[in-house]
Each structure stands twice: as C-alpha cells, then as structure tokens.
C-alpha cells in the first residue's frame, strides 16, 4: 500500500501538476514540435521566472489540440499554444476551428526544409519519395524540378504519375531507414535533422532548400544554412528559367504558410501575460546560451517576436489568391490524392 501511495505521489509530482504556465503541443511526446517546445520552454522559463510545462493534445493532422486550445483553453491566461507547419497547412486545406488572426503572437522561428537525394540514382529519371504530414510543398517542388516548365498545371499530373513514386504510410524514422537502404532515393528534413541523418550517409547529397521568406518584402530568399542550394537557383540551373506559373504560385503559398508558421507561440488577444511573455522571449533570444540550445535543434534561423509576427502574417495573407488556393486544393486532391477543401473564407479574411 505504501509503495502504491509513493508511486502515485512520485507520478503526480513528475507529471508537473504544480506547474505555472503550460504550452499546448498538438502532437504526441517525442514529435519534432514537442522536442522544440520542450527546449524553448526550458529556456523561456529561465527568463520568465515561472515554470512552463508542456502538455500534449495529439490528434488527426494535429488539428484537435489546436481546436481545443481555440475553443476551451485559450481564455486561461497561463496557456500558450505551440502551432507548427502542419497546422498552417491544415489552415489552408482542412476544416479547422482555429484562426491565427484571432490570437496574439508571442514569437516564431522563420524555418524551412531541406531536400536531399542519393547519388547512386538519378532523381530526374525517377523519384521515390515518402508522403507525410507537411510534405505537400516538398513534393510540389520536386515535381516542378523533375518536370521543368510545363504549359499548365494539369500537365504536371501526367508528369508526376510518370516520374514520381509517392510512397504513402511512412513515418519519419521509416523514411530515414528506407532512404539509407536505397528504397527511397529522395528525402526531406528540417535543417537539424538533415545534418543528423541524410548528411551522414556517403551516398547523400544536398538537392535543394526551399529558402525562407523575407518578412519585409514577402519574397523567398536563400536559406542561410544552405546558401548554394536555393530551390529557385537549382531550378534555374537545370531549366534555364526561374520557376513560375500556376503550380509555383500554389507551392509558394503553402510553402510559406508551412515554413513561417512551422514553430510559433500564441496566446489569446486579451491575455494579460502577453507582454511578460514577449519580454521573456526577447531576453531569451538575446541570451547566447539559450539560442545555442535552441539552434542545436533547429539550425540557425531568424526569430520574429511580438507584433513583427503580425507583419509576417500580413505577408502570408497577401499571397492567398483565389487561383493559388484553388490550384493548391486541386493538386492535393487530384494529384497526390489527399484530403482537402477549398475555403473561400480565407480570401475574405485575407482582404
């Protein structure tokens, strides 16, 4: 009996029932966003002077956690939402309750994704690439790169079916292993994971990085971690022209939403702790030790804090056009055969 009571006591303490602030992560423990949130929480609480615990509310496409925060939890002044790229992609393509415009941003990291290929097979002849959450922009970029400029977006469907084997049902770790064995010949990772996994393989070489968005201009610029591998440059080297057209516009829309909002922190607009949290975040990003701990996970990427995030959001909103959104939905449902709906209300809200 004593052991049972002791066990319950230890478990209650260790699951942090006494904590102050909490971060809601819409993924299970051990996911990329969960790890990022735990690292940031540890650094942020040093500046905040109060404890922050991470609470995981996982679910399909990582939507239920964000929905629950939107509907129930956000009125709690000590609850912070950690949103990630999959949430941003779902914001464009799925029915969700949440809406970034209704919240006050604390900060975000302007991140991106890197794509590599094996040197023992020619990706321009045949791509074997894994499907997965948040990978829509990657497969769009790969398709544009291997197919080159085509007269219309519909032409890409035939080329995709001929040149891209899109392997569904693979988790991140299965993808890495399949890539190492050569069952896949193209892979994608966040910068930190790219250094850790594909780059250690002697058969791997960098193919391209999507680049990051310049918040001031809204343009995509080279990834500071992979300056010679910007997608636009690689495309131009191969095909002699800059990427453009309907598919590119749809790609740019979803890529920027996914990458800019890949790791972001939000509270309710009326949250009385907002200023405190922003100040703590500014202190955190000025602290070299804290930044080193975070960049060890993410690579070196810019932080955007407080109202500057709204500037980034406005930049993203400006890219939502009827044509780009419809083409994105068409691509998702027709070519890669995944669930998506056209959300006209996004256009109205963007205006």
């Amino acid at each position, binding site marked *: 009996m004593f052991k*049972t009571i002791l066990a319950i006591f230890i478990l209650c303490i260790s699951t942090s029932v006494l904590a102050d602030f909490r971060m809601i992560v819409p993924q299970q423990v051990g996911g990329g966003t969960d790890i990022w949130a735990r690292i940031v929480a540890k650094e942020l609480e040093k500046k905040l002077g109060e404890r922050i615990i991470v609470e995981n509310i996982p679910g*399909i496409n990582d939507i239920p956690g964000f929905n629950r925060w939107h509907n129930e939890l956000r009125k709690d002044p000590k609850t912070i939402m950690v949103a990630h790229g999959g949430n941003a992609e779902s914001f464009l393509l799925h029915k969700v309750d949440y809406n970034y415009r209704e919240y006050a941003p604390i900060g975000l990291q302007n991140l991106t994704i890197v794509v590599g290929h094996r040197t023992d097979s020619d990706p321009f002849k045949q791509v074997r690439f894994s499907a997965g959450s948040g990978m829509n922009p990657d497969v769009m970029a790969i398709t544009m790169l291997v197919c080159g400029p085509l007269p219309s977006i519909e032409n890409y469907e035939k080329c995709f079916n001929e040149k891209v084997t*899109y392997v569904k*049902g693979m988790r991140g770790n299965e993808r890495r292993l399949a890539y190492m064995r050569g069952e896949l010949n193209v892979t994608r990772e966040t910068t930190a994971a790219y250094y*850790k996994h594909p780059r250690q393989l002697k058969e791997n070489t960098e193919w391209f990085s999507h680049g990051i968005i310049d918040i001031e201009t809204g343009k995509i610029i080279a990834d500071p971690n992979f300056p010679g591998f910007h997608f636009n440059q690689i495309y131009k080297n191969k095909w002699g022209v800059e990427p453009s057209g309907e598919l590119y516009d749809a790609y740019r829309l979803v890529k920027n939403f996914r990458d800019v909002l890949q790791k972001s922190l939000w509270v309710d607009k009326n949250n009385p702790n907002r200023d405190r949290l922003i100040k703590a975040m500014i202190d955190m990003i000025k602290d070299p030790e804290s930044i080193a701990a975070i960049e060890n996970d993410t690579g070196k990427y810019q932080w955007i804090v407080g109202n500057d995030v709204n500037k980034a959001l406005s930049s993203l909103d400006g890219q939502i056009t009827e044509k780009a959104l419809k083409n994105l939905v068409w691509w998702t449902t027709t070519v890669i055969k995944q669930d998506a709906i056209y959300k006209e209300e996004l256009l109205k809200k963007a205006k």
Partner: protein
Amino acid sequence: MSEILFLVLGTLYGFLFGVIPVAGAGVGLITIFGFLDIFRTEPYLLVIFTTSLVVAAAIGDSFASIVMNIPGGSGSAATMVDGFPMTQRGEAARALGAALSTSTVNGLIWGCLVFLFLPFYATIILKVGIPEILAFLLLAFASVCFINNSYWFRGILALCLGVILGLVGQDPISGIERWTLGWTYLGNGVQLVPLMAGVLAVPELLEAYKNRHAHQRILGIKTEWQQIWQGFSDSWKYRLDGLRGGLIGAIVGIIPGIGGTVADWIAYGQTVALNKKEKIDFGDGNVKGVIGCEGANNAQKATAYVPTVLFGIPGAPFEVIIIALFLLVGIELGSPSLLTDLSFFDHLAGSYMWSLLLSFIIGIFFIRYAVRVTNLPFIWYFWPIMLLLLWTSVQYTGYWEDYIFFFLCCMLGIILRKFKFSRAALVVGFALADRLESTTLQYFTLYEYIDIFTRPISGSLMALAFVAIIYGVFFNKTRIKYV
C-alpha cells in the same frame, strides 16, 4: 560516485514502474520529462538512469504478470499465461525465480553482444527492408493465432478486431479521418494503454474480485527459498527454451519499431510448439511457458538499442521516448560523432550490465514480499490496482474522454473473456495494425508482390509463418487455455 547513485536510483525507479501493473518502462520514462533539469549538466547520468530504468522495469514487470495476472508492461503479457496458474498452484516463487534468472542470463548474453560491439553493427540494419518487416509481421500474426490459442478461428476474429481498432484514426493515403464515428478523440487512433488495461487487466481483476472469498493462503518463507532455487534449476534444465526465447527477442528487438509484445508472444508460441506431451499443459502453469517468453524479455530490450543508437531510429516504442530525452540534454542518437564517443558507450554498457545484476538481486529479495501479496486479502490491493490502472489509462489527454474510453475498453475485455475470444490476439493485432497497413502500402508501392517470397530473409520468415498455420490447424495438440 554520482554514477553509482543514479544507477541505484534508476534501478529502483524502473523496478517500481515494472511492478506497477500496466505501467512498465514507457510510463516510467515519460515521467522523467518532469525532472529532466537534474541531468542537463551531466547528460551521461541520464544515460545511466534511463538504461537502468529500462532494464529494471523489464525485470520488475514479471512480478505483476506472475503474481497478480496483470501485465507489468506491454512486454510481459505472455508471462501471465503460465505464470499466474503457477501462483494459483502455490508456485509463485518458483515461477519468479525461473523468470528472473532466465531474463537476467539472456540479458547478460545479449547485452554483451550488443553493447560491447555496438559500433560494428551498422551494416546489419540495412539488410532488413520493407519485405522482411512485412514477413515478420505476418509471422507474428500466425504465431499468436495458430500457436498461442486453443480456439484459432476465434483467435483470427479477435486479431481482425484488433487490426480494425488499430486502424481507427487517420487514413494514411487520403489523410481523412477513418472509423472514428465522429468522435475527434479517436482522431489520432485508439490508445494502447487503456486498451491493454481494459481488455487484459480489468477483466482478470474483476474475475479475481468475484472469487475473492475463495482466496487461498499459500507458501511459507522456507518453501519460498526452495522454490526460488527450483526456479533457477528449471532455467538451467530448460535452458534451450530460454536461449531460444532470447534469440527471438534479440531478432525482434533489432527490427525497428516492433516492441516486446511481439517478441514475447513469438517466443512463447515457439516454446509451446516445440514442447509436446507435457505433464502440465501450457496455460495451466507449465514453467517452460514462463522461461520461453522471459528469455525474450531483456534480450529484446538490449538489441532494441542497436537501431536506436546507430541511426536514431527507435528499435522499440519505448526508445522513442529515450531519443527525445537524450536530445533534450544534448545527446543526439544516430549521429556519427556519438558513435566515436567511447565515454557514451562505456556509460551505456556499464549501466546496462550493472543494473541487470542489481535488478536481479533486488528481484530475488523482493520475491518473498511479492509472494506475500498473494496472502493479503484481495480487497487490499484491488482498489489501489484499479486506481493505478485508471490513472495510467487517462494520461493521454487527461480529459473526460479518457475515462469514457477506458470504460468502453473494460466492457470489451469482459465480453471477449466471457465468449473466449483471444484477447492476446486482439492486442497484438491492434498494436501492429498501423505498421501492417503502412508496410503493406510501402511494399506494394515499391516492390512486386512476389518479392516477399523470393528474398532470402523474408522468404524464410514466410515459410515459418506457413508452418505455424499448418501446425496450428492440423497438428497442435498442446493447446493453451488462455484467452
């Protein structure tokens, strides 16, 4: 000095979580997130603490399985089949002695092979492709339906139900919500812990509660030590069963993502299949049934570290948490710099070996107390265990849906038990459904259907699965009664 302290603490902590019904290493590891700061300046202490925890939990979970008929962790359910009938017969100490000695010896053997040569194993993992994983899954299904169960047709039905439950959540092709009946709680799938607790543990507890007045006092201390010694003798006498279990556990452990449940059931199935004409039927308390699956226990835990350390790819579900914990203190599993870090390997190998020996000693001295639990009035631990099961089962979101879902799982378990459908097949089907679907998808996208039969490793595994089916349908006379 601090290394020894954390070795002892990790071992005790892991043992505690092993003994707590249905908790196990995974739950123990998750709780470390709450006090991770302790390890930030000394990350190797985390290596020691987590490794000790995993090893001790693997030893400790035999207690709940054998004495209480509730799996201490997902990897010890097979031990219950023959372990608990031995307890009912008054031979709990013998069963525990056999379990602890077999688990420790196999842990030492495979621990030596894994941790002393870990940096040299990088090429092995690359030989196991998608066809081999698919064949391995099919072998696991064949084993659990045709060898482990006396009602193989009902076993297949239970397996199918388990697979269906395992597929609830998200369709990997379309990303559309699937079979959730509109309940968003199921959007990320049915959770393993409440299902295990509700289907396997609660029906047994309720049955025991119903029969609480028929409870018999068993064992004196003198008999206890004699029984422990007899358990050691059993381990030596049936060492081939234990070593075979160890080999199976080692092979399963090295395959990414497949946990101890599969290893234990395959090892148990092979033990049943290769031992005919037993005086005591399997399922009625045959000590070989305990030895066979316990051989796989720590062997699987040891080899699960191979893909985890070499590639940062979890060899078992609990390794997912280890990867996350290590990353938070700056240890990146799978990075080449780590593979040249001899200090890391020293801490890993040392903590594994020492905690194994320490757990064995703690376990042996704990037997007398564990056995005494059987002499306590059942009501004394019925409610604490029920509360612990409830607590463990409502950790997913912490909201009311967890309670509703746990209740539904209990109802399912009670119905299955009453109508003699294999709950083990259901749990195995459930645990591997997701992987079966994804691996099948991957296989048919990247390979021809015939490849699984023509590649040497996958072809051999398919042949074994076929033999298991033929054996189960036509020749299996040594049937067990566990459902």
